[in-house]
């Protein structure tokens, strides 16, 4: 298919209605793997966190990790799902070298959690995303294809497999199709993933880091003309950042529209998202999809979560992000719009922690949405990775509030923090940035300035307070700017008033 000129986004929206759906995989942060006792630490030497079970050695058997089951049920409860009273694991059979047993233990027609929803906010509007299912499975290993141009299995001269990840508990969260969101579709997709990430982080069951792969997204997109049936959907894989989720939906909408505009049809297929170009390219066609030959896993006993236990888990759920944000908005005395901008910047938690460390909500918001957001944008990193911690920001503000730093000096100290020089107090001391508030030192500087400018002093004594600027300037020069101008002014006037 030739790549014709893409229509504009507005043109797409004027002619088509999008329907999206998302499948999200989250690696749980349990201490041990799903079906064996191996540790799950990220970044260990390849094939050091393995045993007969997660290597699929002949004779080995899986035993389900209770902590992972509990975490999955808590995710299901947070997403307003029904929790199964009886369900089973199933084997998903297909050959691939990073799957030690050549089947994946997953769940098929009996998932742990079904039929829930998650409300997300987009541009001040609440969109309810239906949750089809939440189920538990094991992750695969990682294959590295060496040689060949593409880094893909075809053309590679050698393939290396690291099984450290094999068997890490993986929760799959599948939405129902989301129609009726029109032009907002890309933003809704992004907002859903962000909200889901915050919910899971609040539950404390995963570190949900997209860049490390502990949260991964597949995005389904289809277009239909108004009044017609939903179109054929494509599944875009490899979408590994919030920004990419939005871009992937938008890019796929544009591509599908150009195909449909030209009278073509959409092929049901898997597509790969490319971070660098923001495009998707065709993967394998679903028409030749593998028959996974699912059947109930005979090596594992069925799961039968005790309803009373589930009730207790439900009662013990933490305050979820949406409720939490509403409470914070009230406590911080912010408008919807202010809160939305904090949310968009991904700064809710950072501000909250900064406030908890002693800063006022206004000050915390000022730092995170101001200087630090600018810095994060300039460097293209997430705000939380910008290089300053909430504790450091709070300490910085304490120094300002205590008169030890002026706003200008505080920004210089912050530079030091971002440069990794340490905590604000230490940087202030090391760089000699503290406001000179020692009145002895200031008095000496003022006396020196008066002696150097007797004419100006005379004018002030005569009631011309505006002339004080000259003396203040001289003092600031002597103290190399480390004095608070307001204080200096007060001291100069007091000195010449007597």
């Amino acid at each position, binding site marked *: 298919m030739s790549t014709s000129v893409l229509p504009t986004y507005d043109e797409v929206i004027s002619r088509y209605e999008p329907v999206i759906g998302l499948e999200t995989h989250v690696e749980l942060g349990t201490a041990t793997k799903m079906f064996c006792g191996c540790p799950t630490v990220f970044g260990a030497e390849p094939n050091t966190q393995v045993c007969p079970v997660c290597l699929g*050695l002949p*004779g080995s*058997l899986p035993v389900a990790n209770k902590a992972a089951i509990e975490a999955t049920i808590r995710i299901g409860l947070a997403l307003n799902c029904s929790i199964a009273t009886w369900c089973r694991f199933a084997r998903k059979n297909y050959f691939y070298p990073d799957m030690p*047993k*050549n089947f994946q233990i997953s769940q098929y027609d009996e998932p742990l959690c079904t039929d829930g929803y998650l409300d997300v906010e987009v541009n001040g509007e609440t969109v309810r995303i239906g949750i089809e299912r939440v189920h538990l499975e094991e992750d695969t290993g990682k294959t590295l294809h060496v040689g060949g141009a593409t880094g893909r299995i075809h053309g590679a001269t050698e393939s290396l497999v690291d099984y450290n990840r094999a068997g890490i508990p993986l929760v799959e969260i599948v939405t129902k199709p989301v129609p009726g969101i029109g032009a907002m579709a890309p933003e809704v997709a992004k907002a859903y993933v962000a909200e889901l990430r915050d919910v899971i982080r609040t539950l404390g069951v995963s570190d949900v880091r997209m860049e490390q792969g502990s949260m991964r997204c597949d995005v389904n997109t289809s277009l239909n003309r108004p009044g017609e049936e939903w179109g054929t959907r494509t599944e875009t894989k490899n979408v590994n950042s919030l920004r990419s989720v939005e871009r992937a939906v938008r890019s796929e909408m544009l591509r599908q529209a150009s195909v449909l505009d030209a009278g073509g049809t959409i092929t049901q297929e898997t597509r790969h998202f490319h971070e660098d170009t923001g495009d998707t390219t065709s993967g394998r066609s679903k028409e030749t999809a593998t*028959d996974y030959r699912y059947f109930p896993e005979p090596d594992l*006993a069925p799961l039968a979560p005790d309803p009373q236990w589930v009730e207790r888990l439900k009662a013990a759920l933490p305050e979820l992000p949406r409720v939490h944000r509403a409470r914070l908005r009230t406590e911080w005395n912010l408008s919807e719009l202010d809160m939305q901008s904090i949310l968009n910047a991904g700064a809710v938690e950072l501000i909250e922690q900064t406030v908890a460390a002693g800063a006022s909500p206004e000050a915390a918001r000022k730092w995170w949405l101001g200087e630090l957001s600018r810095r994060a944008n300039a460097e293209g990193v997430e705000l939380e990775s910008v290089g300053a911690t909430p504790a450091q920001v709070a300490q910085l503000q304490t120094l300002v509030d205590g008169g030890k730093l002026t706003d200008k000096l505080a920004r210089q100290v912050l530079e030091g923090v971002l440069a990794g020089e340490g905590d604000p107090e230490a940087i202030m001391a090391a760089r000699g940035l503290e406001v000179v508030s020692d009145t002895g030192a200031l008095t000496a500087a003022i006396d020196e300035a008066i002696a150097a400018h007797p004419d100006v002093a005379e004018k002030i004594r005569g009631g011309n307070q505006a002339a004080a600027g000259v003396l203040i300037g001289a003092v600031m020069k002597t103290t190399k700017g480390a004095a608070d101008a307001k204080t200096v002014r007060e001291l100069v006037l007091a000195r010449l008033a007597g």
Partner: protein
Amino acid sequence: MSDLIKLSAVALGEKLAAKEVSAEEVTRVHLDRIGEVDGRVHAFLHVDTEGALSAAREIDSRRAAGEKLGPLAGVPIAIKDVIATKGVPTTCASKILEGWRPPYDATIMTRIREAGLVMLGKTNMDEFAMGSSTEYSAYGPTYNPWDLSRIPGGSGGGSAAALAAYEAPLAIGTDTGGSIRQPGAVTGTVGAKPTYGGTSRYGLVAFSSSLDTPGPCARTVLDAALLHEVIAGHDPRDSTSIAQPAPDVVAAARLGASGDLTGVRVGVVKEFGTDGVEPGVTAAFRDAVETLTKLGAEVVEVSCPHFQYALPAYYLIAPSECSSNLARFDSVRFGLRVGDDGNRSLEEVMSLTREAGFGDEVKRRIIIGTYALSSGYYDAYYGQAQKVRTLISRDFTSAFEQVDVLVSATTPFTAFELGARTSDPYQMYLADLYTIPTNLYGGPAISVPIGLSEGLPVGLQVMAPTMADDRMYRIAAAVESVVGTFTPPAL
């Protein structure tokens, strides 16, 4: 030939405990026997001479140090090659696992070592336990010590033949559709399939996960019970393992040996009938039922209407599970690798390896199972077979409301000539006609010798309710107390 090899495990254990003989000596005489006869019997795929002698010496020094040891400490044992043994080759009689030395011990292996038993080596079997004659071993068949031109049963023909040939007093087998009991029957030895979940499957290379059960093989019922006691009990590594105390099978075997079955109700399965059963087997079974009556048991006929569907259901469930279980043999992490010349793709290497590494019967079952699980066929085959399985379990449950145990011949025919049934898989499958229902139900069953038909052994099968393994030992021991044990002609 030392007389020691003819002793039961119980008798050997007593001699060892009394320090009349050392474990090293007992091990040596068995290794000598293997050296003497196994060229003709081929019960073993691997003899671990050094490992056995060093394990025996360790037992001797512990005993010399005054340590209190179990009743089987120092007694040799042969292990079916489907059980993972740390550092010792484990091939499942398949080319695809040639040379594989597991880095871990199966749970039952750990328990066997802890009980002080001395492993002599690994025994021959049908490849991946798929077969009823041990002719499907990739390393050549095992020959029945009763008549070397005949099969020793299967899949655990090696373990049964090792006992009958006095190469070992005890052996481990695994029973998926009769692989312990049918070899026991045709070699004149005792073989018990415990309740599914009563013995751990951790380290048993899976053929059909929902059916596989490791169990004891011996020349006497009490010996089998003692070995059963060693390997039974809950294992947290196997989530299908039953978290209950194991039944006291040793006490039951001793009780049965008193020969009194007064008050015991025994059911004969009406549907098994006599069609296709060798007359000699029917006659021996009739005699056994008469013996049970004489011992005081009340024998009645019981109907199990769904047993007739057991064979077809089994040949969908077992191959389905095996098609998935055997997927891991792909040349990537262990075992055989064929065609990896730097030019072929991974997929081609996997295919070539599996083509070269699996035998025909294994391939046949993988193909049947793959088909039965395919989308569009699942409900008609695998799904339907599971329903039949439920119905068969109900037959057992309602039968056990009327009787304490069910009895039948273990297998419809005695040991057949090598090659007699390999051309028609169905003729081979018939060997397990009477043993398969128990596997689908999950209960325990034992085969005990009851006589000879034209010079070849016939076995009686005693089936009991789940977790009532003790019951079958009592009945089997009572029968044994009357009919005695059977010794094959000298090799």
